[in-house]
């Protein structure tokens, strides 16, 4: 067909209009303003038109689904600069179409954000994925990023080293000097993965809510918060590399082939009594002496040198319980009534979010006798508001709590922690 005859057909007039409206398409790296059109041709004639359209290279059309047959929709990404021309062409020829994507770049940006989240190395604590379990390197990176992003509020203190020489990192949230403090630790038993995961979430929650939530802001105006997320890093590394069910530290025991001490039986409170084991090959082995484990000694030294901690919360899983001293004796703690009532309020707050059922009481009556436990020691040091949590669940998944429960667990637990911290702040001693 000669060019002249081509010019004379009405179809060609359509294309002429198109060409007349043509705006040069510059080479673009982004897709800002591009739209995705879905075109429905009603007959073969319209399909032919669309095929001719696809041959107009200067338009820069990007067909995701080529024109083939009138029963099949045609998807085409139209660069911003060609939009007017293409829409005019379609309108002139009465070809039906829908705008499927208003701006392709927006979609890509969202996708990019999603992809970045799942990269190994998030660039900020906003990129960090809170809905999955992380390893030690990832958590230590998180800690450093959090400090870097919030250096006016957060600092990192290294309170000691684990047996295998890993740093014992504590986050300090502080708005002024010489304040009394509140301590929270997670992951003292390494297989209790939802606790370290919750600790990460708590850290982010504090920096997010400071300056926004009046109660937390008020607490931080009067108290420092100390948060040790991976209290047993050697054990934690071991749960990733060798044995998901590892609980204890990784210190060898002389005279035995068995490794490790239960860090929650190693404290100097009823040490050596019933409720812990003298056999190094057991999960509740108390160790050769109180505070023999560097992970425990580091906290002991920190508590003693700080001298002004007013609340101490040590977090475990599982059983869904909030517990107060004692574990080594059935003699009630002197402050039992107040501790019981505060536990009741904290549990009520926790349950308000997802109706997760918690029980509460002293360790020895509610869960089992345990000697040499953390909060028995801290309580005897004069830290009145000493509590232990056992987080979700009640045995169905136990230590292997599905990752989609991390955030709900952290969210509900935070309500209980806030109740405890608020009470501490309102009842100075």
């Amino acid at each position: 067909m000669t060019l002249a005859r081509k010019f004379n057909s009405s179809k060609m007039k359509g294309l002429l209009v198109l060409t007349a409206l043509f705006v040069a398409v510059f080479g673009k790296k982004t897709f800002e303003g591009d739209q995705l059109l879905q075109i429905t041709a009603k007959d073969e004639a319209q399909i032919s038109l669309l095929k001719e359209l696809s041959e107009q290279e200067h338009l820069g059309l990007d067909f995701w689904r080529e024109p083939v047959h009138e029963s099949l929709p045609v998807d085409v990404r139209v660069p911003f600069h060609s939009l007017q021309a293409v829409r005019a062409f379609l309108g002139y020829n009465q070809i039906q179409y829908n705008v499927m994507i208003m701006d392709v770049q927006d979609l890509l940006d969202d996708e990019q954000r999603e992809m970045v989240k799942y990269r190994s190395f998030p660039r900020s604590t906003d990129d960090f994925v809170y809905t999955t379990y992380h390893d030690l390197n990832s958590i230590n990176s998180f800690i450093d990023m959090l400090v870097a992003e919030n250096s006016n509020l957060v600092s990192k203190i290294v309170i000691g080293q684990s047996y295998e020489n890993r740093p014992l990192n504590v986050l300090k949230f502080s708005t002024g000097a010489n304040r009394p403090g509140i301590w929270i630790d997670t992951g003292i038993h390494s297989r209790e993965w939802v606790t370290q995961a919750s600790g990460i979430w708590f850290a982010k929650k504090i920096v997010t809510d400071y300056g926004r939530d009046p109660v937390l802001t008020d607490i931080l105006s009067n108290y420092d918060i100390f948060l040790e997320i991976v209290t047993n890093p050697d054990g934690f590394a071991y749960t990733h590399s060798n044995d998901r069910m590892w609980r204890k530290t990784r210190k060898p025991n002389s005279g035995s082939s068995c490794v490790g001490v239960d860090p929650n039986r190693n404290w100097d409170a009823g040490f050596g009594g019933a409720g812990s084991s003298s056999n190094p090959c057991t999960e509740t082995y108390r160790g050769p002496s109180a505070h023999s484990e560097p992970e425990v000694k580091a906290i002991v030294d920190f508590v003693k040198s700080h001298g002004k901690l007013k609340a101490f919360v040590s977090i475990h899983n599982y059983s869904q319980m909030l517990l107060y001293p004692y574990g080594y004796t059935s003699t009630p703690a002197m402050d039992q009534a107040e501790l019981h009532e505060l536990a009741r309020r904290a549990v009520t707050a926790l349950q308000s979010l997802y109706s997760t059922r918690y029980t509460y009481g002293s360790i020895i009556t509610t869960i089992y006798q345990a000697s040499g436990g953390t909060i028995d020691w801290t309580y005897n040091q004069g830290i009145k508001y000493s509590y232990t949590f056992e987080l979700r669940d009640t045995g169905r998944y136990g230590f292997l709590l599905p990752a989609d429960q991390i955030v709900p667990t952290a969210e509900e637990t935070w309500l209980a922690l806030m109740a405890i911290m608020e009470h501490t702040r309102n009842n100075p001693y």
Partner: protein
Amino acid sequence: MKTFCSVWLLLSVVELSPAPPASQEPPLACRGAADPAPPQPETAEDMASTGDLEPTHYPARRAAQVALHYLNTHHGSPFRVFGLQQVHKASAEDVEAGGRKYKLDFSVTDWASGSAGPALRCSADVLFPRTERHSAPDVKLRCEALQQINRTAQEEEAFYQKHITPDSAVSARDIPDSYGNMSEEMQPFWRLARVAASFIMLRESSENTEFNMAQVASVTQQESSEEQLMLEFVVLLHDLPSQEIVQWKLLASWSPDRGVRVLQTEWQPRCPHATKPPN
């Protein structure tokens, strides 16, 4: 270390084995490793824990868990596993023949029906005998409306038909995995393992234990026999008071008609506490 454990296992397979006797020598490969430490005697107060019990404290809860294990052995299936929701009332008394009997009033939910499921009210008498060697507790149980729960018949039949075929050879490890993930396909097998494990947990329970199933280490389908699905499981049980992880291998059968039966159980050493052998 794992090689040593496997070798030891091969040399020591025992069928229909009862609970390991307290005096059992630790396997050579696990020098120093032992059975879960004998439970420490509880406080004097607990030993005399009779009369009305606090429902949220451990003596009542442990007895209720035993009743749960019993319930699951009788009514559990690939599509039904009961969990304890709450203890309402509990009391205990010493009995003449020696032993302590607990009377319980509690509620259970079916894990398979998720948060949608209703709570079932149950009452039970749980008798823990006081014998020199451990013997299983005795349970008498009544749950309301149990006979009315029929709604899983279809799923059970479909599952049964799918896997009774000769070419079905299910085999999997670590259910759930370290991150708590479990595929939809594996869920009925997890539940079957949990029900089969209930036979062991029931048998091994005392007033000083509180068992849950921590993980299914492996499931391997065996050749079907007498129209029963035959499954070999290795399960990890967790005992709360001692915090020990105990490994058991077991052979279980199941069909919609006959329910779950456990044919063989074998305690397996786990050697978790030892160092790696020098290589």
